[in-house]
C-alpha cells in the first residue's frame, strides 16, 4: 500500500511526454501543496461510499446508540485524507488556494489574463 502510494507520487512528479497541443504544456504539478490536494481527492473518491454508509448509521435516531458510537470510532479510524472537507479547490494553473472561480477552476489573476487575450470562450469585458 505504501509502496504503491510512493510509486504513484513519483509517477505524478515525473515528466509527461510533450503532447502536440498548442499553449502551455505542464509536466509537473505546480507545487507540493497541489500534489497533496490531488492525493486527498483520490482518497476521498476511494472511501466515499464507506463514509456515506457509516455516516448513515451515525446520523439517525432509529438504531441503538451503542451501534452509533461504534460507527463513530470506525469513521475516525479511516485515513484522515479521505475526508472530502479537506479538499481545497485550488487554481489549476497556479495552485492558488484563494480567489478561485469554480466554473473555470482558475484563480482570478489567471482568469483575467486569459479573458483579456480572448482565450476564455463566452467571456467579455463587462460594460453597462
Amino acid at each position: 500500500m505504501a509502496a504503491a502510494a510512493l510509486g504513484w507520487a513519483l509517477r505524478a512528479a515525473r515528466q509527461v511526454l510533450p503532447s502536440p497541443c498548442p499553449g502551455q504544456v505542464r509536466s509537473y504539478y505546480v507545487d507540493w501543496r497541489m500534489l497533496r490536494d490531488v492525493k486527498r481527492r483520490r482518497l476521498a473518491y476511494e472511501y466515499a461510499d464507506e463514509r456515506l454508509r457509516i455516516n448513515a448509521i451515525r446520523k439517525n435516531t432509529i438504531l441503538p446508540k451503542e451501534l452509533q458510537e461504534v460507527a463513530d470510532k470506525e469513521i475516525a479510524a479511516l485515513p484522515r485524507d479521505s475526508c472530502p472537507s479537506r479538499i481545497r479547490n485550488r487554481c489549476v494553473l497556479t495552485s492558488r488556494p484563494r480567489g478561485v472561480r469554480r466554473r473555470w477552476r482558475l484563480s482570478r489573476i489567471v482568469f483575467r489574463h486569459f479573458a483579456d487575450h480572448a482565450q476564455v470562450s463566452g467571456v467579455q469585458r463587462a460594460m453597462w
Partner: protein
Amino acid sequence: EKDKSTTSKGSTAEEASKRKEGTAETPKQKLLDIIGNMKVEVSYRKKLQELKASENKKQDTNRQEGPDSAGPQRTAEGIQRGKPLNPELVKAASAVASSLPLNKKQTESELLAQLRRHEETTDKQKKGETINISNVISEMTVKKQSPAQRAARISGRISLELDDDGQRIRPERFSSQSFDSRRSLKVGKRLNIFTKASTEPEHALKTVSSPTIWDLEFAKEIAAITAQPPRNGFEEMIQWTKEGILWEFPIDNEVGMDDGAEFHEHIFLDKHLEGFPKDGPIRHFMELVICGLSKNPYLSVKQKIEHIEWFEKYFEEKKKLLQEI
C-alpha cells in the same frame, strides 16, 4: 409557322391591334369594371382565370398550329354543352382575352372551356358525387352476420334492464364483441400508441448523411423565428412536451434510463432484504435505506445491491454487540 399564322389571321390581328392602340384603355377599364363589380364569391374564379390566362399565354407561344383548327371546334363544343355559363364571367373572359396581345378568339374559347370545367367540378362537389367516394363505396363489402349474433343483438336492444351501476345487462357474448363496434378490432392500420414506434423511418433516413452542426443550428434558428405563441391549450401542451416539462403519454417508466435493467428492478428492492431480521430497528433502518435507493436515479441496480449487501455484512459483524444490547 409564325408567318403562316400571322398571314391567316392578318385581318383579325390588325383589327385587334388597331382597336388596342386606339382604345387601349377601354378594354382594360371594361375588365376592371367587370371584375370590380363581381362579388366575393366569384373572386376565386377570377384568380383561376388569371392563372389560366397566364398558362394560355405560355401555351400559345409554344404551339401555333393546333389552335387554328381547334379554335372553331372548341367553340362548337362550347355551344353543344348544355350548361350556360354566368354571363358576367363570359364578359370577363372576353375582356381578358381582348387585353392579351395574342389570338383573341382562341384565348376566349380556352377560358370559357376552363370555366365550364370549374363549374362542373364545383357542382359535383356540391352534390357530393365525386369519383373518390364512389370508389370507396365500391370497395366496401357487406358483412354477413350469423343468425345467433343477430338474435343476440336484437334481444340486447329489446331488454333494457339496468344494473346497479345503471349499465345495461347484456347477454354474454364471446366473439360478438368484435362486431359491437361494427368493425372488427384487429382490422386496420396500427396506430402504435401503446407500443414503441417502429424503427422503419430511421432506416429510411440513414441513407442521407447525418446533418452537420451548422445545419442543426440553421434549423434551430428557423424554428425559433417561425415559432408562434400557442393558440390553444393543446399547442401549449405540445410545446411543454417538446421542452421536457410535460411527460409523454402513455408514460414510459424508462425514459432517460439506459441502464438496461427494467424500472421495477430499481424500485422494488424488497427482495434484497431477506438477510435481515424481520423486526427491530435494523429492519426499520433498512426499509428507509431502500426507500431512498428506489428514488435514486443516478445509481445503477448493481450499485444499489452492493449498497444493501455492505449493510448486511456490517450488521453481521456487529451481531455480537447487538446481542449484548
